[in-house]
């Protein structure tokens, strides 16, 4: 034990309350995964709220969902999954000690993340223009409302109460809460990746020690997974309402 402790001690990243570098890495990996499951339950609270209200207010949620820009949503899905790929490649480059590739892939990931946020900003600004932001100035056009009342009747579902303004607003409240919290996680992720890119450039990481890159990757992929669920739940799940069977 003492020997391995001394042997590991040469690495600058080694923390001396651990016995070995291996133990340190196993501990921090477990810590990172535990952190991610706290994130699952954090977002899980909002998914629960969504589930309850979508079941209650199906028609209103359909009405709200159909106003979202599917093209932008799908584009962002592709961008974000792409950023997960580049992130995975960044970790791979770190594992294989290719410093320049590591920096390049990290920067690419940041770029794709920023693209996602840019598109999100465009979508948000549309929502502001259309007065679809919850609050005193919330509007939902009477033309749209009537349209969805008809659709709701056509579906002949007992679950559908018809479209109510408050309920549509509820959809948008959840839309902003969920995507907003997701965007906040992306902003934090971009911040972390920027630090990593800078450190990678200075050669801090090597095939022996690249744990921070790996953990940032886990975080980034997790944020991607949240979006993988948000996209169908918010943009897709009621698209068929206007389509007759």
């Amino acid at each position, binding site marked *: 034990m003492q020997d391995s402790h001394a042997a590991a001690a040469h690495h600058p990243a080694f*923390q001396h309350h651990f016995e070995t570098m291996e133990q340190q890495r196993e501990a921090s990996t477990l*810590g990172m995964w*535990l952190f991610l499951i706290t994130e699952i*339950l*954090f977002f899980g*609270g909002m998914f629960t709220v969504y589930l309850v*209200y979508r079941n209650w*207010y199906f028609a209103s949620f359909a009405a709200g969902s159909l106003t979202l820009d599917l093209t932008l949503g799908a584009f962002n899905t592709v961008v974000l999954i792409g950023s997960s790929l580049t992130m995975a490649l960044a970790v791979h480059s770190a594992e294989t000690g290719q410093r320049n590739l590591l920096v390049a892939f990290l920067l690419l990931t940041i770029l794709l993340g920023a693209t996602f946020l840019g598109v999100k900003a465009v979508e948000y600004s549309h929502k502001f223009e259309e007065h679809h932001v919850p*609050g005193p100035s919330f509007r939902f056009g009477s033309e749209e409302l009537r349209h969805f009342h008809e659709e709701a009747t056509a579906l002949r579902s007992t679950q559908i109460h018809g479209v109510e303004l408050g309920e549509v607003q509820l959809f948008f409240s959840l839309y902003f809460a969920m995507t907003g919290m997701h965007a906040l996680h992306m902003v934090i992720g971009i911040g972390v990746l920027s630090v990593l890119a800078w450190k990678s450039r200075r050669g801090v990481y090597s095939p022996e020690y690249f744990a921070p890159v790996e953990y940032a990757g886990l975080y980034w992929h997790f944020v991607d997974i949240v979006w993988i669920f948000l996209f169908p739940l918010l943009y897709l799940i009621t698209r068929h309402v206007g389509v007759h069977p």
Partner: protein
Amino acid sequence: MSTAVATAPESIHRRRHYLNADYGIRSWLFTTDHKRIALLYLFSITFFFALGGLFAVLIRLELLTPAGDLMTSDTYNKVFTMHGIMMVFFFLIPSVPATLGNFLIPMMIGARDLAFPKLNLASWYLFMAGGVFALYSVVTGGIDTGWTFYTPFSTTYSNTKVIPAALGILIAGFSSIFTGLNFIVTVHRMRAPGLTWFRLPLFVWANYAASLIMVLGTPVLAITIILVFLERAFHIGIFDPRLGGDPILFQHLFWFYSHPAVYIMILPSMGVMSELISAFSRKRVFGYSFVAFSSVAIAVFGFLVWGHHMFVSGQSVYAAMVFSILSYLVAIPSAVKVFNWTATLYKGSVSYQTPMLYAFGFLGLFTIGGLTGLFLAALGVDVHVTDTYFVVAHFHYIMVGGVIMGYLGGLHFWWPKITGRLYPEGWAKLSALVVFLGFNLTFFPQFVLGYLGMPRRYHAYPEEFQVLNVMSSAGASILGVGYLLPLFYLLWSMRYGPEAGPNPFDARGLEWQTASPPPTHNFEQVPIVQEEAYAYHAAQEVPVAG
């Protein structure tokens, strides 16, 4: 048991240990030593406990007379709310884990520190930041929602400082998450060679189980508070019936955390109990693995029963039936623990030192608290006593009679380890007795009051309830004395207490094999464990100091 055998007694002053390793306020505020952080927590939570106690004093003073004469209804609402918030979020939840757990878990598993020492310090800062927000809410006018923040009152109608208090709890919640995460990783990855899971002290098992709840439950509280915050600030409708929201959904999310949170409080105290009972009966805990698994079972079952807080809320009556049945499940592992502790006493050589007195107190009070919990789990009975003093008495028997008894018992037991000095046994025994008597006088009458129908959260009541309320207030003053005594004599003993030596109670466990106070890295050499926990041998006992 290990290679780290304590050497001949050496004066505390001449030896280097964690307390004199470094001096000055900076050495404390920037420390990453889990033992120093435990002390930071100890002082902080004592402060919040005193504050919560002050509000309790005001409550009991008001309830001395049937008329609402000391304060207005609004003030009373604020007082019991702040009593609840301070006690629950800033004292009970961090009580045992953040102090004793922080101090002892690395030592009990033969590690130099927790897995993430910096995160540990950050947790303390988050806790204090949360405390500052909560205090800000208190000094700028208070908050009157009850500690449960029920919507739509908290989101729409209350005109008090809901947002800073909620923010404080949110931030303190992250402190709790990171503490739990730290413990879980430490227990998995930092155990000394030979220390298998079934050789771990039961205190470690109990804290591990509590940590699971912190990690899995607290995030849901965090997002719920954020939604309340958004609702209150922007009226987005999530819990507002006018816009189609459901206030009861808030209760689901809130109790998903806050029911298991009760087990965050009680499980570590149960861990203390196992240590105390075995050390002062000189026996291995009866049915070790049952006690270990019952901790995990409590943590898991605890997540399935939250709806029993909502029997009269308007949730589905069918869901209420399911929750009622599931609630009985938690009684099983709890009873396993109580029976096994009792069985440990059987044919043990029991000694009645202060920590053991607290342990006996816990045993009795927790049993009463737990059994009245069964009344409340029964759907029909609960409807009768919902929101009465019966409920108040029940959860105080668990949260004060259970948690604080365990906390004080543990604090006394490990005080020689923490400070290197013995507390005055006579005073300590007296205080344990005073706490027990004061506690029962305070809260037993409340069972009767509640059953007779006195509702909680009112500052005026019919005259026929006065006798019992006076008894309760009298008990509270005795209880207050019982809590002040240890504050004084423990502080006194830090300077004037006789030196304790490494193992004054002749207890087993790795923490007793190093010096008191321990050196900064806990052990001179990493211990190698070759025995199971609690290897007490009654036959070869030597007289115990203290």
